[in-house]
C-alpha cells in the first residue's frame, strides 16, 4: 500500500481532527467524569476516521488516520496517554479490518466498522490494564459489571443482562458513528466531486 502526497495530506487532516477532538473533548469528558467517556470518544473518533475513509477510499487509510490521531494524543496535558493511544490504534485497526473484509466502503461496511470499532472499547481494559497497570482479569471483570450495574440500575450480580446491555449500547453508538460518517462522507464526496481534492480513481483498494 503506497499513498501519494495528496492522500497522505488527506489522512493527516482527518487524523489531526480525530487527535484534536481526543485531546480537547476527551480531556473535558475525563474532567467532568462523563459516563462511558471512552466509548463516546471512540464513536466520535471513528465517525471522523470513517468519514475520511469515504472521502479517501483507500485500503489502509483508516488505520493511518488512527496512527496520526494516536501520535497527537501524546500531546495531551496532565493525563495518562498510553492506554488511550493503544485504544485509538486498536479501534482504527479493527475498523480497517472490517472495511477490508467488505472490500468496498459501502454503507453496511461503514456501519459494521463503526459498530465493531466501538464494541472493542468494552474489551480494551482487559488488554491494556494487565499490561500497563498489572491489574488482574477478575478485577477488571468486576469493574465492568459495576459500571454496567450503575448504568442500567441493576445489581452487579446479574452479569448476563449487564454484558448484553453494554454490548448493545456500544454497538448502537458504533453504528451511529458509522451512520454519521456515511452521511458526512457522502456529502463531502458530492461537494468535492470533480475537485482536485478528490481521487480520480475512486474505490481504489
Amino acid at each position, binding site marked *: 500500500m503506497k499513498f501519494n502526497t495528496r492522500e497522505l495530506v488527506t489522512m493527516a487532516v482527518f487524523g489531526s481532527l480525530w487527535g484534536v477532538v481526543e485531546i480537547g473533548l476527551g480531556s473535558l469528558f475525563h474532567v467532568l467524569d462523563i*459516563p*462511558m467517556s471512552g466509548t463516546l470518544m471512540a464513536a466520535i473518533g471513528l465517525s471522523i476516521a470513517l468519514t475520511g475513509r469515504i472521502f479517501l477510499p483507500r485500503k489502509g487509510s483508516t488505520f493511518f488516520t488512527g496512527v496520526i490521531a494516536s501520535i497527537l494524543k501524546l500531546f495531551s496535558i496532565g493525563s495518562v496517554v498510553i492506554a488511550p493511544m493503544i485504544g485509538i490504534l486498536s479501534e482504527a485497526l479493527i475498523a480497517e479490518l472490517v472495511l477490508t473484509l467488505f472490500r468496498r466502503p459501502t454503507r453496511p461496511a461503514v456501519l459494521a466498522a463503526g459498530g465493531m470499532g466501538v464494541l472493542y472499547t468494552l474489551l480494551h481494559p482487559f488488554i491494556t490494564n494487565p499490561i500497563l497497570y498489572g491489574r*488482574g482479569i477478575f*478485577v477488571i471483570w468486576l469493574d465492568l459489571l*459495576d459500571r454496567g450495574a*450503575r448504568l442500567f*440500575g441493576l445489581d*452487579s450480580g446479574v452479569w448476563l443482562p449487564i454484558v448484553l446491555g453494554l454490548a448493545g*449500547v456500544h454497538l448502537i453508538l458504533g453504528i*451511529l458513528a458509522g451512520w454519521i460518517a456515511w452521511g458526512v462522507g457522502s456529502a463531502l464526496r458530492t461537494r468535492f466531486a470533480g475537485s482536485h481534492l478528490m481521487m480520480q480513481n475512486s474505490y481504489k483498494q
Partner: protein
Amino acid sequence: MKKISTLLLVIAVLLGACSQAPPEGSSVPESGAAASVLTVKGGDLEKTYSVEDLQALEAAQAEFKGVTYTGVQLSSLLRDAGFDPAQIQAVKAVASDGFTANYEPELANKADTIVAYATVDGGLTAEDGAFRMVLPGQEGRLNVRQLVEIQVIQ
C-alpha cells in the same frame, strides 16, 4: 433536516440512557449524608464498625496526595471481621453514592492500604466522609471517599 433531527433525538435518548442510575435495591445512603458506620461483608459474614471501633484496632498511617491519613490496615480489618486475607479473590470498596472500586488480593493485603478515619492533623473532611480508602501511589479512583461498605469476594 429531518434526518439530522432524528439523529440528534437518538443521540439524546442514548445519552439519557447512559446517565448514572443508582443500583436497584441499594441500601447505600445518598451522597452527602455522611455515613458513620462501615459495613464489612462477604458470604455469610457481616460486621459493622463505627469510627470508635476502628480506633480500637491497631493504627496505621499512609500518605496520599501529600496528606498523611490515620486508619487501620485493610488486611487487619478483614481479619477482624472474620475473613482470611489469603483466601480472598477481590475486595470491593463501596462509596455512599454507589461508586465502587475493586482491588486485587495483593493490593488489599499491602501494608500501606488502609481504611482511614482521620488525618494526622485531625478528622477527615466532609468530602472524605467518616471513612475513606487510602492506597498510596495508586490512581485517584481507587482511593474511594465516603466509604460505607467493604465487600469481600471469596
